[in-house]
């Protein structure tokens, strides 16, 4: 079977436009709290979810909107939920980090790593209640150091669960470079539990689609769980208003805010380790520099990459349809929200 590039591109475009709409609502203060966007994860979400059918389950993390959009959750209740409306997907109780859609067997959690054991539970239930159905868990590489996640890898193998673990590797755990707090290699880690694991370029939807297809078929056939390590960028930082990105986006303001206390600390008494302090400052500087290089020089856009695989006229049509669909959903949600208020 060959990937249907048009459908995959449509899925990615819908995700991107939804995320952009969320960013806008959040900036305007209409959405409260944090906002973790999945801009950069479109190919992973679209490429994996394309293989799911009714009865399959999704256990999601704090970037849960893209897989839900790809899965076909109605956009109006989704946006109503984001603006905290009582007629939203979760009646205003969940918000973007805790989205639930029972009809799609899809849940999400803001507790890092929890999507793995919850997905194992969905997969376990499938063994009893719906043989042939599968569960997919999405999480980041930062979550791969959580005990519950590692325990789930073992559980899935021990119970031969129909589960696919999708690790979105964006190299950053909030403001920490994951490699600085991670031992060994995640692919080998997963394999050591006794399940097939493969690395895939998460910015290339056709590659994700192919790898995910194998993993989902393996699970459906009851052969074994699998692990997919998909590299992808984190284009909007950990969350909107990401403190590291802000240093680049509003350098003057941030320097004035962060600078003086840092200088005071550098000079503070007693002068323990005084000679080493510039070195410590350098460690912070290095983190910022690495982020800057990744962000402004090396960051691929999965949507642009997918666009190259679709004829121009088709892409323009899909873009327009997807954009209109999202705009309609946002206006409908805002209109209903207003009437209600």
């Amino acid at each position, binding site marked *: 079977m060959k990937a249907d590039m048009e459908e995959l591109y449509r899925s990615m475009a819908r995700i991107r436009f939804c995320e952009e709409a969320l960013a806008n609502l959040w*900036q305007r203060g209409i959405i409260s709290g944090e906002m973790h966007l999945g801009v950069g994860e479109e190919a992973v979400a679209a490429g994996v979810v394309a293989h799911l059918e009714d009865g399959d389950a999704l256990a999601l993390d704090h970037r849960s909107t893209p897989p839900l959009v790809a899965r076909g959750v109605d956009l109006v209740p989704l946006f109503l939920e984001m603006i*905290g409306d009582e007629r939203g997907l979760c009646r*205003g*109780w969940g918000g973007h980090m805790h989205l639930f859609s029972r009809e799609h067997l899809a849940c999400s959690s803001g507790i890092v790593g929890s999507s793995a054991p919850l997905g194992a539970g969905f997969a376990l239930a499938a063994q009893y209640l719906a043989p042939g159905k599968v569960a997919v868990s999405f999480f980041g590489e930062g979550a791969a150091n959580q005990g519950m996640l590692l325990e789930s890898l073992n559980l899935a193998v021990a119970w031969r669960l129909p589960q696919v673990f999708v690790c979105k590797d964006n190299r950053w755990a909030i403001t*920490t470079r994951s490699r600085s707090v991670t031992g060994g290699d995640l692919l080998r880690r997963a394999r050591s539990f006794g399940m097939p694991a493969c690395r895939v370029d998460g910015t290339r939807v056709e590659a994700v689609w192919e790898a995910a297809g194998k993993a989902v078929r393996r699970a459906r056939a009851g052969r074994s769980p699998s692990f997919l390590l998909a590299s992808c960028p984190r284009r909007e930082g950990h*969350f909107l*208003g990401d403190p590291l990105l802000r240093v680049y986006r509003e350098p003057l303001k941030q320097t004035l805010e962060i600078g003086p206390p840092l200088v005071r*600390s550098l000079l503070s008494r007693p002068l323990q380790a005084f000679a080493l*302090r510039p070195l410590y400052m350098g460690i912070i500087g290095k983190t910022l520099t690495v982020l800057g290089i990744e962000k402004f020089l090396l960051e691929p856009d999965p949507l642009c990459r997918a666009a190259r695989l679709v004829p121009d006229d088709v892409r323009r049509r899909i873009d327009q349809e997807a954009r209109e669909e999202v705009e309609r959903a946002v206006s409908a949600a805002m209109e209903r929200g207003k009437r209600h208020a």
Partner: protein
Amino acid sequence: MPKMTFAQAIDYALGEAMARDERVVTFGEDVTMLRRNLFVRFGPRRVRQAPISEAAFLAAGVGAAMAGLRPVVEIMLVDFIAVAFDALLNEASKVRAFSGGGWNVPLVVRAACGGGYGDGGQHEQCLWGLLSAMPGISVAVPSNPADAAGLMLSAIDSDDPVVYLEHKLLSDYWLDYLGGGSRGTVSFDVPREGAEGEVACPPSPVPIGKARLVAEGGDLSLFSLGVGVHRCVEAARSLAERGIASEVIDLRSACPLDTELVTASARKTGRVLVVDEDYIAYGLSGELAAVLAEAGIKADFARVCSEGAIPFSRKLEDEVLPNVRRITEAALRLCEGRP
């Protein structure tokens, strides 16, 4: 005395303790950035970055404390402590008892808590009741910068485990990271006296378990902690306009409780209203009722607490968290002898 923000006061005290005692180290997720002012001063050996592995690094904190360090372990938000429950419930809380009093755990667990910025019920809990239920663990909850510094010093000086909770509405950087995030289009009900104030230099310790009498009054006692204290003060003002004199007590720690001060106040006023942002059932408010009952005090009693999961929607959230309207109404009912 210099003025500081609540957040500055905490790190000021922590920095003083670290300068004074080489054994004080701090670790947790993202601390290089979150504690950057301490990081550039003390370096990565003393301010250590941890992977997202709460179960491992909190239990490692327990072990390190047993072996002679005085760790201040950061569990970013207290909600995430659930991931590391064993470290507290079965390890930290038991060492002194199981060793027959011969071994102790000088551990501080620092976490942000509390709601009021629309982040949903997995990031806004308080959990001080749940944590206080564990034997052998103290839970400090400052409501202003001076107490924030003083309680942090006492927590580090304590030879037994202390959970130190900083309320996000008082800590400007948490509110900015999780609520504001650089946009000027949202606002929060931040109590000014809590978010900024004078701090002694050098900071002076505040004993854990000593409550503070915030306002004196003879008609009604309001017991609270954290942001709730400021809500009580505001409610007391509007009650005063109706001729009701409220006594406001800042408990400053959920455990141990200053039973002396609370029983004295309850005995004086005969009416007690507990304002607790934590869950209503099986928690601090029930504990206070038991303390009063056991002391033989016959007082009218009511409570304003969070009654269930905290909703994401700001509008719904405002109703669930103790607010001034709910406190005032409950106080009036109590004073009028209505249930």
